């Protein structure tokens, strides 16, 4: 993607991406009780990344974010399947989720659910696959 060196756009995007990323992470964690979740959170992150790719060129972004998004997606799928397999260790059927309340130092009384791990897998898979698709298409001359 060849694009004019638009200073204004770059300045705005720097802030906007930060906001989008924060919002996405918030969406991801609040998914348990409020609107949000892994899928939306993941899509939000990839939307932020796409914005970066659109504004700056791909080389700059990949230099600063040296992830292989294919591997990231694969890790996500593995985490999701892995949490499913984890149920076997507790003699429970595939993909059984559970939750509990714990007292954590900063957050106080917090609910922790295994579903969050699964959701993390979903989020990573969504980011990995959407960014992979978009990068592959845009890198093609």
């Amino acid at each position, binding site marked *: 993607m060849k694009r004019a060196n638009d200073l204004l756009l770059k300045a705005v995007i720097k802030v906007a991406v930060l906001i989008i990323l924060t919002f996405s992470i918030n969406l991801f964690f609040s998914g*348990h009780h409020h609107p949000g979740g892994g899928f939306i959170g993941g899509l939000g992150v990839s939307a932020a990344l796409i914005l970066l790719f659109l504004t700056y060129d791909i080389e700059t972004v990949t230099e600063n974010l040296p992830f292989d998004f294919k591997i990231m997606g694969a890790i996500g799928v593995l985490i*999701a399947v892995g949490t499913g397999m984890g149920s076997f260790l507790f003699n429970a059927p595939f993909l059984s989720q559970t939750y509990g309340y714990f007292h954590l130092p900063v957050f106080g009384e917090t609910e922790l659910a295994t579903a969050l791990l699964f959701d993390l897998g979903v989020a990573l898979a969504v980011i990995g696959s959407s960014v992979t698709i978009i990068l*592959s298409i845009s890198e093609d001359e």
Partner: protein
Amino acid sequence: MAWSWFHIIILLPFLFAIVVPFLYKVFSPRIHTGWFVLIVPVFLFIYLLRYIPVVSTGETILLTAPWIPSVGINFTAYIDGLSLIFALLISGVGALVVVYSIYYMSKHREALHNFYVYILLFMGAMLGVVFSDNIFVFYVFWELTSISSFLLIAYWYERQRSRYGAQKSMLITIFGGLSMLAGFVMLSMMADTYSIREMISQKEIIDGHTLFLPAMILLLLGAFTKSAQFPFSIWLPDAMEAPTPISAYLHSATMVKAGIYLVARFTPVFGGSAEWFWMISSVGIITMLYGSITAVRQIDLKALLAYSTISQLGLIMTLLGLGSAAIYYGNGEESAFYAVAILAAIFHLINHSTFKGSLFMVVGIIDHETGTRNIRRLGGLLTVMPISFTVALIGSFSMAGLPPFNGFLSKEMFFTGVVNSTSLDIFGMDNIGALFPVIAWVASVFTFIYSMILIFKTFTGKHYPERLEKEAHEAPTGMLIPPVILASLVIILFFFPNILSDYVLQPALMAILPAFVETGGIDIHIEPWHGWTTELYMTIGVVVIGTLLYLTLRKWQGIYRFFSPEGRLNILYDQGIVKMEEFSLGLTRRYMNGSVRSYLVYIFTFMILVVGGSLLLSGGLTFDFTNDAPISFYEYGIVIGIILSGVLVVTAKSRLTAIIALGAVGYLVSILFVIFRAPDLALTQLVVETATVALFLLCFYHLPEFKKRGKGVGFKLSNLLVSLGVGVLVTTLALSADANRLFEPISSFFEKSYELAGAKNIVNAILVDFRGFDTMMEIVVLMIASLGVFTLIKLRLARKDGEE
């Protein structure tokens, strides 16, 4: 029902195969990978030997491990005389072959890890076949043997002949395997069980059933293709492209005998009927004759052995067919008279593995040390390779049926079985039964001739070193050990056959003819000499006529120009493959025309026809608006907006307009979600829509010029019809679904998300917990799709099409 050590033992080769590549990586080429692999068959053999005393008392062992218990598929290991003989052959010959391969396969040049992984795969699959009692588990292992055989034949895959042979064997044996599966399904329908043993106990029900004959024919197709019976035998000679240890192991000693095993295993189910008797014995005797006659004309030593294997397999088949008559007579003396054939079949099965295994190994040695297997170039190796000569002599004479080798004993028993069968007065045998001894005798004469060709054309006569690619010398000791062991077994079995008969043959016989379990088996006493009987005269005739014909071979060899059924069959096969490929290519080209529009038309038309058709036929097309909420002003507005944007997408003159209009549709839909108070959906829709529009804009550069192709009326009309059809269908489907309540809605379950999943957000609880499996599969699909896009773009190969 529990997993036992025995199940693990059966699966041991598979488990060991996992570590083989690592062993290869670490130790090669310092230590030959074969030495590690050798542990498996040796251990198996010793472990299985312990079962001989148990099984020889007539006891059988049944061990069931749950595999998919919900559909009645369990990994049931059934140990009886028959399965134990096969298992001992698999592990015993397997151990010898691995030793042999250590010297045959160079550790510097060959991809040994592949080789041994395939061998172990085969070994495990074959053990699975002989021990499985559940027909579906049996089938899985059966096909695994075909697949591992395919891999092994194609081991030197850079050779065109290897690939050809591998494909041929795979196509033929898998075809047989599939028809066997169909036969199995019919059997399970008749007997209402998946267990072979229980089928045997329900013989009466199966006998009278209308599916009896179809099931039998399908099952026999499996056996005949696997055991290379005429006319399916054409794959075996081409399978000789495999490395010689493989030919010795799979294509003479074990895998090709799986068909024999299948027939023997199902003899108690089908035996005693005329169809079973005739189909097996006639196919067997034709195969025997065809194989032995064709073997004589071969000039490649391995091809000669291949045809000889076909012939010997036919011999064993014939015996199993003839012996099945014993079931008709129950367990009396008359029955025992015909049961000799079954006994001869099992005995010859073992003998064949010993002498044919040693012969294959010797031929491998000749190939390895001289560089050729062509009879015309070989000769006079007697002085150069004395030990190989001795082994070959023992093997060939045993194959020819001469004393003092075990082949003589089983050949005599074969004659006994065939002669006994002439006194049958059932199945119409009284009319043409006399044909069997005649054909068997003629086939034996040819067997004698090719055995002599094998030994004398190779080892006697004049030695021509200049015709060989290497300077001939005797093989290294390690390579000679396995054939020498097999050759000594050939002699030992001649002198002490009754060790075998008490401990192994008797229980195997009871497995094939269960009626004899009550009487404790039949009186088996194998002796080389039983007076001047018909069998002995037949053998003497074979030797005399065989010697005469061998000496005058040159004079009558010419007749082979007029006798070449294998050539015709191969042409038929090759033509069939070519025609089939052409046909399916033509058919596929017809509808896979490369246009996305056509594919969408197929998909949507199909959807309209199937879904709409079933909606109409099932009478589900009813509407009920009484419970619906009133439609608000905003909703009207948004829907009108959606419709307008939709029309704009279709009528837009530029692509950019179309993309933006499409985005508008999406955003309006997400506003609709907001109105219906579904924030999760709305959020997702918004983000997805944003990403999609971004994607479209990215693709913008790559898409061809925005031209409406095929502006004909027909084109537009079909577009209109399909899109209208889909719209109408989806709308009516949604309305009808609302009007029909077939069961209580399940939404009340999801409402308990906080109690069940600890989540106040129902949508999220559904996604990650209640329907977590769906989500998991979705992200897998997503990942696959993205990798697909990646590979399509990055590894694009089809540039030469010039469509860019």
